């Protein structure tokens, strides 16, 4: 029954159920409170307008222009996030791998740092 692997992740599964139930029940309770008139629920068209500091919103939805530089950061993030995926197993086993692993990882990170330096040089990290 208490197999070592599944008994641990079983508790994580129970916790994830609890983690969804608690905030959901908080929202549910406030929803139920509107039925026993603990809280008002009188929507009208002006109330359900989006809040833009009192100015009436023009157009529908939230479509607005935003800076394309966010996209560059997303690209950089993907590259370095893959690096973190590789570097964690390396770090756990580092003590037994020794010098060879250090040199290998140095080469790997150096390749990525060249990419970062290129992006830096091309002023991709700046907003002007």
């Amino acid at each position, binding site marked *: *029954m208490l197999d*070592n692997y599944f*008994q*641990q*992740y*079983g*508790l*994580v599964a*129970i*916790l*994830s159920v*609890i*983690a*969804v139930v*608690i*905030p*959901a029940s*908080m*929202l549910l*309770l*406030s*929803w139920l*409170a509107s039925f026993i008139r603990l*809280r008002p*629920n009188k929507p009208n*068209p002006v*109330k*359900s*307008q*989006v*809040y*833009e500091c009192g100015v009436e*919103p023009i157009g*529908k*939805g*939230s*479509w*607005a222009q*935003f800076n394309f*530089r966010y996209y560059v*950061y*997303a690209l950089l*993030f993907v590259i*370095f*996030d893959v690096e973190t995926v590789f*570097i*964690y197993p390396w*770090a*756990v086993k*580092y*003590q037994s791998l020794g*010098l060879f692993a*250090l040199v290998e*990882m140095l080469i790997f*990170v150096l390749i990525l740092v060249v990419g*970062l330096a290129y992006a*830096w040089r091309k002023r991709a*990290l*700046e*907003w002007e």
Partner: protein
Amino acid sequence: MNSLLESNVIFRNVYCFWAANPGNAEQCTPVGAVAVKDGLLPGGLEWLAYVMAGLSVILLIVNVYLVFAALYTYVDRRVLAKFQGRIGPNRVGPFGILQPLADGIKLMTKEDLVPAGADRWIFNLAPVVMMSSGILVLAVLPFGKDSFVVDLNIGILYVFAITGVNTLAMFMAGLASANRYAMFGGMRAVAQLISYEIPVVLSVVGIVMMAGTMSLVGIVEAQKVPFIFVQPLAFFVFIAGSSAEMNRSPFDQVEAEGEIIAGYHTEYSGMKFGVFQAAEFGAVLITSALIATLFLKGWEGPFLPSHVWFLLKLFFFAFIFIWIRATLPRLRIDQIMAYAWKFLLPLSLINIFVVAAEVLLLGDQITDSSGVSMDLTTSDMWIMAGINVVVAIVAVIGLAKITGMDARESTKVANVTRVIKGT
């Protein structure tokens, strides 16, 4: 990975209380001279005892977390008021300590508005996702000696994986609100959180390397010297990066009041807003607990019980976060992004390789049943601490000079202040 029954005290006691029949649960061996009494459940129902034992640990820690998160909203306002020469909330109960309760009742009885163009499902789901990601992190936090929900062998990786969901929740809220300002908040949240994720994750690599494990319990036990001394650079990167991940000042561009109203939760009202707030303040506590565990030996300490030590360290860092919030002005979004990519990322890479080289040079290789590992004695760690403090100072000052992040920006700020003061 230890068995739950061997290491987790609360789990063991509840489990053996219910299912300790002979032949029912062989794992309930007597501890010392005290024999195990027969459990209450008949044979074949160990799974029920397992669920009950798990629920008792989980509900204990989750409830404590929620109460502390509520109390922290009070402490935050009160201490911030002291910093700013105000009084703060002092009307409800003695010293205003019941303020969180009053806030909760107020939010519960407020009208819940949903904007006309909103995507209702995602709009309602976002606060749930935000809070559940906070609660899920509690699974691996060791809050005392032999006290945790589970001791996963991927502990710290699990924490980073779960906190990554926060980004998604904020973007869901921003996108579903049908409000342009909320959309900007969501965009900024994604850009800022993913940028700071990388330095934060990389700063912990040095700790994993020295501990040789990702389990948080293993990391605490590996700290012969607190890692705050051994790796000051990693500590600096972690505390700066995680305060950006929590959207706290000076990195609170995601909900900058002066620019985008309240960011991604502009359109939220009533209890949904309350859930967002509770999740945000809870995140500060969880981050403080993580910093205490990773850098300050977690629950270990002399004289006092282990849980008290853990809470003391947690509150210390929670106070530091309030202090930072009260002291530093908000940065611009481009400064925030530049700070992550040009300053914190190189620092965390420097930290990794300096620590890697030191582990190789100072550690004595030993071979045992679990394979080859490096033995770092206490004096080795103090030598590392000495070297790393110097490295940290040189790296921070040098990099600030190279990137121009010190002089240029601080003169700008000084000029603005001079204009405001009229001098």
